[in-house]
């Protein structure tokens, strides 16, 4: 495979192959962040302390902001917000199934553990995008990295506290057993285009490499706290990356798009429309 040091150029300068690879990278970035944010909002008024309500609400706002940045980059390629979100079908999306699952009822351990598994993966992915050959990805990455910093810290601090409590530990362990296979789908491919993503320098680590780094890091941290990380686990099926999703996503998607539908909208009107 040929190495390349070329900047891919502006959105309208991409070859078909480049465009396909750029899109493949962008869609999972946008969809993962968007759906993660949608789920976080559940906890906004249900977290165990006011401080946690705020922290989770803030995380959700961060992820929504990042989703907006990524969807903006996708719109530069010609897509519209309507087709991307409000007039989409559930199986248009390529986010990992980890972010679409509803939280186990009343289970704060689930929310924290999930956030931890996701945010470590996110950190590793962003690091691999920091020198991307596609400007719109590169430029957004450093901004997002700065805003993601404390997500992992927040989750780690909670996990340390929960590890000291028997009941909380039990819940975290149960969440780990339940969610681990879904977390692995974060590193599943969408197709042959995966090779091009790395070959064209859009991202500088393969899915396998990122998964290895994630496994090493999360296993070391969780094991140290006394949790047992599932061994030889396989990614869940469907993966989400394959456009196939659990029924939970279909429900959430329905809810997410209902206001637009109920209002009979055909476009996402903006706040400051001239007319």
């Amino acid at each position: 495979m040929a190495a390349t040091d070329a900047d891919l150029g502006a959105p309208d300068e991409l070859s078909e192959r480049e465009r396909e690879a750029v899109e493949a990278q962008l869609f999972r970035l946008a969809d993962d962040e968007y759906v993660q944010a949608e789920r976080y909002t559940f906890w906004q008024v249900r977290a165990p302390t006011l401080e946690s309500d705020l922290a989770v609400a803030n995380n959700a706002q961060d992820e929504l902001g990042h989703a907006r940045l990524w969807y903006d980059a996708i719109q530069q390629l010609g897509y519209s917000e309507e087709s991307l979100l409000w007039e989409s079908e559930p199986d248009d999306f390529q986010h990992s199934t980890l972010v679409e699952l509803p939280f186990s009822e009343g289970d704060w351990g689930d929310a924290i553990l999930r956030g931890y598994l996701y945010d470590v993966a996110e950190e590793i992915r962003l690091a691999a995008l920091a020198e991307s050959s596609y400007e719109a990805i590169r430029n957004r990455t450093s901004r997002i990295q700065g805003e993601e910093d404390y997500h992992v810290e927040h989750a780690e601090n909670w996990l340390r506290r929960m590890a000291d409590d028997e009941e909380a530990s039990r819940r975290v362990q149960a969440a780990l057993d339940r969610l681990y296979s879904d977390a692995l789908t974060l590193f599943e491919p969408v197709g042959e285009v995966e090779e091009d993503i790395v070959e064209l320098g859009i991202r500088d680590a393969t899915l396998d490499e990122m998964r290895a780094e994630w496994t090493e890091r999360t296993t070391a941290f969780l094991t140290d706290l006394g949790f047992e990380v599932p061994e030889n686990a396989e990614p869940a099926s469907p993966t989400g990356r394959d456009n196939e999703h659990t029924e939970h996503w279909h429900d959430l998607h329905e809810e997410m798009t209902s206001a637009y539908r109920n209002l009979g909208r055909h476009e996402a009107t903006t706040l400051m429309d001239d007319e």
Partner: protein
Amino acid sequence: MSSEPDGPEEFDRPRADPDAGPCGYTEYETKERTTEEVPATGEGAEGLEREVWAALYEVEDPEMPVSVVDLGLIYGLELDDGNATIDMTLTYSGCPARELILDDVAEAAESVDGVDDAEVRLVWAPDWSLDLVTEQGKEALREFGISVER
């Protein structure tokens, strides 16, 4: 979201390949990049350009009585035959007042005699941080009650 051109029907999202497998390792290098000095504050500007900067100075952040110029959010201003192009960033990607601020900036530029049309381009690099705030901006932040290092 910004109002990019509406996509025609053919913009369907890309689909996963059902026979997908993870790919092997590839080496590549990225090129060196240089970034221009930011922010732009209009220092030394003359004539029409100076007037546009004066108008931009009047635009304040919706949450703090500090000019967007002093906050270091304006990265560039170009004037070309009555058309103003402004590059700017925001302090936070999840800013809920994004459209409001961008509109305020465009309107401020267009309020200047000699500017017919203003385009505001939202940019995310170089990264914005507190050290891009001007001295005057830091003073305004302190007055507002935000502690900023001297």
